[in-house]
């Protein structure tokens, strides 16, 4: 069952300057992104800072209004709603309950003046899950147990907990209203390595239990691979490659995906590999993106057309899409032969 369909999504942020705050430019954070979310499936979004992965997550949960494109929401009863512009009143409550988010930094995302009980009760009360407050408190205790904490912790405040424990609290709050889609924006990046795996396991266990969908945003390729069924590689607001996780890792088609994988340290001091990374330069600014393919200034396999025409995504294998002129040429040649 489908939950969300995103087509051609664009998000530009205005840059205002001068006394009258006139718009003098645009930050092109998202350019033509397509995305489908099916029930129970995890889509990983990977890319470096400024690639638009967080903007994509935030536009999908309707924190930001898209500049162009469309977002379609399929509610639990199977009705289809266009939520591109605002959130129509009749779907607002359903959507807000159905789609939840876990943020990167659990030190910022929990109100320091609320007890853990109040933090987790907030969405429950907003959506009027229980008529009886006692029942709700028991439910909170159950949630805390489910995320690996103790029900007694409900009386405490966020500062009494470590980063990993806080992220567990943030997850308990997000799943309290039984969402069908959970968007996790770098949920383990602020955590210690020994704790990161605990949180990943917890998210996987919860997903298995509730069959919810996940959008898992991260810059860490290994973590995204572990979590996801399908992975989208973003660069400067564009989707460069999208494929089932194992296909993306076994046969990365786009030169950027290949470079990204090569830049991950080896963990093997006998075979140091970073010296072989040949990727020069840095991602360009989304305020003034290069013409043609956004990756062409850094691409080791650049062709003549690359700085003029943005390549269309072609299917290099079933469900494996790649937007690259070089790959498109190869695919066309193979198809002819």
């Amino acid at each position, binding site marked *: 069952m489908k939950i969300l369909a995103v087509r051609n999504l664009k998000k530009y942020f205005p840059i205002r300057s001068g006394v009258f705050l006139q718009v003098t430019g645009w930050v092109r954070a998202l350019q033509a992104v397509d995305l489908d979310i099916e029930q129970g499936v995890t889509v990983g979004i990977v890319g*470096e800072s400024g690639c638009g992965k967080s903007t994509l997550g935030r536009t999908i949960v309707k924190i930001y209004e898209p500049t162009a494109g469309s977002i379609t929401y399929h509610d639990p009863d199977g009705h289809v709603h266009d939520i591109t512009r605002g959130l129509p009143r009749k779907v607002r409550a359903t959507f807000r309950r159905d789609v939840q988010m876990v943020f990167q930094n659990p030190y910022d995302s929990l109100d320091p003046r609320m007890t853990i009980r109040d933090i987790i009760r907030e969405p429950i009360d907003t959506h009027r899950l229980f008529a009886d407050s006692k029942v709700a408190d028991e439910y909170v205790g159950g949630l805390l147990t489910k995320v690996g904490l103790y029900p007694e912790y409900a009386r405490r405040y966020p500062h009494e907990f470590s980063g990993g424990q806080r992220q567990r609290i943030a997850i308990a709050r997000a799943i309290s209203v039984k969402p069908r889609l959970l968007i996790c924006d770098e949920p383990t990046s602020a955590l210690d*390595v*020994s704790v990161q*795996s605990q949180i*990943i396991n917890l998210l996987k266990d919860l997903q298995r239990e509730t069959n919810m969908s996940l959008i898992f945003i991260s810059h860490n390729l290994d973590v995204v691979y572990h979590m996801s069924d399908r992975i989208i590689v973003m660069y400067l607001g564009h989707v460069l490659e999208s494929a089932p996780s194992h296909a993306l890792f076994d046969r990365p088609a786009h030169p950027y995906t290949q470079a990204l994988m*090569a*830049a991950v340290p080896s963990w093997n001091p006998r075979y140091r590999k970073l010296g072989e990374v040949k990727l020069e330069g840095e991602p360009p600014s989304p305020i003034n993106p290069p013409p043609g393919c956004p990756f062409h200034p850094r691409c080791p396999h650049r062709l003549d057309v690359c700085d003029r025409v943005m390549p269309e995504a072609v299917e290099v294998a079933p469900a494996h899409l790649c937007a690259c002129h070089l790959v498109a040429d190869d695919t066309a040649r193979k198809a002819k032969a």
Partner: protein
Amino acid sequence: MSASSKLIERGERSERVERILTVENLKTYFRTPEGLVKAVDEVSFHLDRGEVLALVGESGCGKSVTALSILGLVKSPPALVEGSIEFRGTQLIGLGPKEYREIRGRQISMIFQEPMSAFDPLYTVGYQLMEVARAHMPWDDAEAKARIIDTLRAIHIPDPEKRYSEYPHEMSGGMLQRIMIAMALITSPEIIIADEPTTALDVTIQAQVLNLMQELQRDYHGSMIFITHDLGTVAEVADRVHVMYAGKIVEKAPVVELFEDPLHPYTLGLLTSRVKREYKGESLPFIEGNVPRADELPEGCRFHPRCPRAMDKCRTLEPPEFSPRPNRGVACWLWEEGDGR
């Protein structure tokens, strides 16, 4: 720098090692309303010329405080800094502020984690580089500027004359981190302390910066203390590794041996916490529990509440450092008899 230091090849010691820094029983304690925080507790290690020593550990393990203590940046009092830090025959603990300035920034310099917050946004990077040169080097301004631009060129900054007069906000994080490396290099220091130099950077930029640091390491033959929480980057750059946990060094090893034959259960836990491809579809292995707070350290071995092999002894007695193999050290009771497997 001199050609003699070329004698030291990665992994194996030549006979003519030159010891430039010796830290013995370093204690850095902070008094807080919650009680005494033992951020660094009886830490001993040494650094030889031309080598990269990695201090690895999770947040709160004391790795950054160790660096700040070496640089004399922990104010004592109110903090308590005790033990011995000997740099080329000079005792740094108790050294006066004036004498410390001769060493800090000139002979021992530091690369900080967040390039965006380490620079002053109100001055051009050139001005900030010049400040270092003026404070430490006998050059006049024209010569200093020429040398700064040479240094920028040496670390592959395109168009260094133009970059010199730019402000920090005009540059990307990766570029600023390279400028900070240049800043640490201007005085040709003997030791560079790099505190999580690539943590704030993207992987492709991290690869570039790590490559640059290795290149400089080879060319300048300086020594480096590389502080990080990321064992992946340790495998790429370090010669020797010290693993820290809750203010203590728990394991010391040459880099290859650490990865292939970890002795301490915590090191083993860190190595297995890596998210490997084989784990897809399964639960990830992890270390139980959380890092203890510095003001609530457990009795005995500080790792025992999370240790899968904890014994009765571990709960009450702090383990000393054992040396079951040459060039290795491990603070764990399992190795008391010489074999902890």
